């Protein structure tokens, strides 16, 4: 598996499989933070220590497979161009932090479902994605992968504190479970504003994806656990599951409500957005996200029949700045990007 293959497709192979509740829940992710017991954490470690971690991971896991996660490729950050790094971030294979970290890299499985970041804030960050809403499956597989790594690595672990991490916010389970969720109707009806504080009180965080603060670009939100200590992984996942089930129900209800109270207006908004995506010549990133969200809602409500979820998932990544520049094979100005973005969207929607 070469770097090129990860770069060329905007949509990861695992995303092509339709997951449960995928009209609202796009994906489920489990992240486990782990450290080598005897090595200083990356923030303090010197170059030699960091290299030793990189070499160990490369030697023991490059080209290896576990279950569905085949043929792990090792990619070192220092070998990548600025645009290539950005593409990997936009595909959520690595964090923005990893691109800035010293002597860092990532192991990625062929289906791109598993990525293991090396020398991020912690020595090891296992990241596992599942399409749709599949929390328990994701946790089971993440545990298996964790055990697989533990066969060869002495993890920093303490009976009282659990898995030891660089940041106190991750200590204990080292786990961040998160769900990417599309909530256009809750945003339109403004109900989301009342729900977020309630969700926070349960120890879960709601953030916009790609956007800053509470303003979510394309009505996409990420819900994840805040607490990692004193609560088992199973309990965290179960609680998050019930928060998500509730959000999904509320979103369905809000969609129903909008259809009945202002159906024509909603239909008009959806088809206007569809028209702009199909025929526009210049489109900014923010507008593209909003229009794609409208079209996704149109598809979910059965108003638009000739567009698939897959195309929309692909467009979400394809229209990001890094990917556009990778596609053009050169650095583009903002206005050049807006033109290329509109062109690519037209091409995808008019096939």
């Amino acid at each position, binding site marked *: 598996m070469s770097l090129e293959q990860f770069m060329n497709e905007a949509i990861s192979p695992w995303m092509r499989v339709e997951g449960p509740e995928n009209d609202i829940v796009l994906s489920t992710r489990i992240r486990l933070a782990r450290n080598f017991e005897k090595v200083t*954490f990356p*923030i*303090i470690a010197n170059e030699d220590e960091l290299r030793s971690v990189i070499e160990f991971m490369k030697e023991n896991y490059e080209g290896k497979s576990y279950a569905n996660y085949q043929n792990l490729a090792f990619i070192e950050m220092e070998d990548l161009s600025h645009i290539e790094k950005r593409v990997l971030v936009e595909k959520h294979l690595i964090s923005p932090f990893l691109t800035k970290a010293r002597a860092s890299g990532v192991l990625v499985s062929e289906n791109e479902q598993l990525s293991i970041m090396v020398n991020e804030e912690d020595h090891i960050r296992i990241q596992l994605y599942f399409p749709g809403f599949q929390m328990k499956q994701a946790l089971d597989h993440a545990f298996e992968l964790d055990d697989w790594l533990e*066969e060869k690595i002495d993890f920093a672990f303490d009976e*009282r*504190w659990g898995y030891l991490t660089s940041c*106190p*916010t991750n200590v*204990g389970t080292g786990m961040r479970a998160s769900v990417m969720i599309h909530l256009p109707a809750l945003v339109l009806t403004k109900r989301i504003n009342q729900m977020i504080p309630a969700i926070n009180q349960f120890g879960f965080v709601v953030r916009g994806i790609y956007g800053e603060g509470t303003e979510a670009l394309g009505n996409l939100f990420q819900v994840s656990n805040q607490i990692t200590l*004193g609560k088992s992984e199973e309990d965290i996942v179960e609680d998050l599951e019930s928060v998500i089930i509730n959000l999904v129900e509320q979103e369905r209800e809000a969609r129903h409500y909008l259809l009945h109270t202002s159906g024509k207006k909603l239909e008009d908004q959806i088809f206007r957005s569809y028209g702009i995506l199909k025929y526009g010549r210049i489109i900014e990133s923010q507008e593209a996200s909003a229009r794609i969200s409208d079209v996704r809602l149109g598809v979910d409500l059965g108003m638009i029949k000739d567009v698939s979820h897959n195309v929309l998932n692909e467009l979400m990544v394809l229209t990001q700045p890094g990917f556009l520049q990778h596609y053009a094979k050169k650095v583009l100005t903002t206005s050049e990007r807006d033109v290329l973005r509109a062109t690519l969207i037209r091409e995808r929607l008019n096939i």
Partner: protein
Amino acid sequence: MLCTECQKRTATLHYTQIINGEKTEVHVCEVCAQKKGYSFPGDEPYTLHDLLTGLFNVTSPGLDVKEDNFFNQFNELTCDHCQLSFSEFQRIGKFGCTNCYDTFKAKLPAIFRKVHSGNTKHDGKIPKRKGGNLHIKKEIERYREYLQQLIKEENFEEAAVIRDRIKDLEKLQGGNES
């Protein structure tokens, strides 16, 4: 790695400086970084740090670090593996190594309680090899709780079974330790 400026504190900020095409690596601690102007407030996403610093109840030293503080820092808790001092830990909001957890252990419950809604003890996965007998220990704990409940309910038949199971586990635990 020690700070290249003061040679006293641990370097936590790492830069590559390019001046007239000449590349130099800079490794400094936060104090020297601020003094020498390597770090620009607002340049990096410091919000989480700020938040944590707030949680840890520390008064942020800000830009003007008084020289007297330096001497105080020598006397204070410092990790003997990575040389991270407690005040540096508070400032960056990150541990430097496994040993830091041991060095700062007296201060950790208060911090963890704030970050994790009052929790101070791990209750999740245990590594298979590294965890050793912990698995058995946890299972015994669970059985003991169950046993208490059974006794309360006067379900002595089941209680006897559980008591035997605990005994077996304790034997197993003893056997593994020797």
